[in-house]
């Protein structure tokens, strides 16, 4: 089977790997400036809740920078025979929590250069994401244009914690740049705290598992905002990929949106289709963390309402604590070829299709 894992976290042993990629002023910031943790920490406005055991799998414990790749190769890429792994970074998503957007831009640029230099050449299965800090959309657009032509870059990625809903015209320079270079715009769970809104709409949760169960909340806001603000009329070929935000909430949200739109379409006269039709055409959802009901048929029936066979993309979230193994993903067997890999080819056009054809045949 052809497998594209759309959420593989490439971590580092210390944020100091970014030092060679930073301009002198920002290098001083990272070496001597204030930080949330010990030396080598990545600067960010910290979230209010903490995972009591740390959020990484306990059997993944890299001690050197090289271990990061070698362990991933042994315990993930080779073990599950993964064809393509889309790298989604880790801490760099948190740059979006910083009020100093100059520093945030410097950090994500340094990360992107490090990722292209250090990670992409290590394995021909790797594809990269350009991390942006959306607090400065014009800076983000410049970064997308700077690196968007790289043959192994397949998407632009921001945290789902944000200052405003992503359909807001404030962010449209980002989508203009994405459309120009032909890359999807993706959001990934994270980036709460600092200047960004809290993960939870009514106020901060206290516990990690409580927060994690609610990770769909910001994603719901972004999905609705992207559709209602007409992003997909302006950029009809743009794919919006929602990573690590759960999936079974999508159908009920679309039912509500479609019904309300039928009554109130005059509020947003620029829309030409039902909200669910934009969702089906332009938005894709990564599977992880897939909901786990007692009876898996309840999940499958729900996923059918969002045309899950065509709109879901497999993700493992390696190496985090809620990791989903490709061999143990509870989706309908008839959907496996599409969800595990083929759907990704529509979204990530720089992934070579011949390899996929060979694996399916």
């Amino acid at each position, binding site marked *: 089977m052809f497998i594209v894992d759309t959420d593989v976290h490439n971590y580092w042993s210390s944020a100091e790997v970014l030092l060679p990629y930073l301009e002198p002023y920002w290098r001083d910031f990272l070496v001597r400036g204030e930080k949330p943790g010990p030396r080598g920490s990545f600067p960010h406005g910290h979230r209010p809740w903490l995972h009591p055991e740390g959020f990484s799998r306990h059997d993944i414990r890299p001690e050197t920078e090289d271990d990061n790749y070698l362990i991933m190769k042994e315990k993930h890429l080779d073990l599950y025979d993964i064809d393509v792994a889309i790298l989604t970074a880790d801490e760099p998503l948190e740059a979006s929590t910083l009020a100093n957007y100059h520093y945030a831009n410097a950090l994500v640029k340094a990360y992107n250069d490090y990722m292209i230099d250090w990670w992409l050449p290590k394995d021909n299965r790797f594809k990269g994401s350009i991390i942006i800090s959306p607090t400065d959309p014009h800076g983000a657009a410049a970064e997308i244009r700077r690196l968007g032509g790289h043959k192994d870059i397949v998407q632009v990625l921001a945290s789902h914690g944000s200052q405003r809903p992503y359909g807001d015209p404030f962010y449209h320079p980002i989508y203009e740049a994405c459309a120009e270079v032909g890359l999807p715009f993706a959001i990934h769970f994270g980036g709460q705290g600092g200047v960004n809104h809290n993960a939870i709409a009514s106020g901060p949760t206290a516990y990690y598992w409580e927060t994690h169960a609610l990770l769909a909340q910001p994603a719901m806001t972004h999905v609705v905002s992207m559709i209602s603000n007409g992003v997909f009329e302006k950029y009809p070929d743009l794919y919006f990929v929602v990573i690590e935000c759960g999936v079974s909430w999508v159908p009920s949200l679309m039912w509500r949106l479609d019904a309300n739109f039928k009554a109130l379409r005059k509020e947003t006269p620029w829309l030409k289709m039902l909200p669910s039709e934009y969702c089906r055409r332009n938005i894709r959802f990564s599977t992880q963390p897939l909901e786990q009901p007692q009876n898996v048929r309840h999940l499958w029936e729900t996923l059918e309402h969002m045309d899950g066979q065509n709109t879901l993309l497999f993700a493992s979230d390696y190496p985090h604590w809620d*990791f989903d193994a490709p061999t143990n993903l509870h989706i309908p067997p008839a959907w496996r070829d599409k969800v595990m890999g083929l759907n990704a080819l529509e979204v990530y056009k720089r992934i070579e299709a011949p390899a996929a054809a060979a694996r399916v045949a």
Partner: protein
Amino acid sequence: MSAAATAPALTFACKAAQVAVGKPTIVTIGRIRVGIFQLEDGYAALLNICPHRAGHLCEGPVSGTNRQTDKAEFVYERAGEIIRCAWHGWEFDIRSGKCLVDEKLRARTFPVHVDGDDIYLEMRR
């Protein structure tokens, strides 16, 4: 019936010196991997496959847990008796293999026999 027919089939696992309290050793026996644990009062062995989602059960941290209480108090107990799966953190009793939130969910255990410095497991063949 001869003695040989009733005696459990024992398989050598590892040397006792290879296992320490709080630090299980994972051994490969045939095609399976088993975690060997030393507790304060003896040894235990668990298959290195979590019954939840087939994660690397024995590569997680050995720890204690918080007792269920009626109010917001944190009573840490059973230190060293719990293994948390390396993947998703589900808690299992090292001796019985029982999952703490659902006793029906059980990690596979193997009876352990110690002979001098050698640790043997009772395994069905």
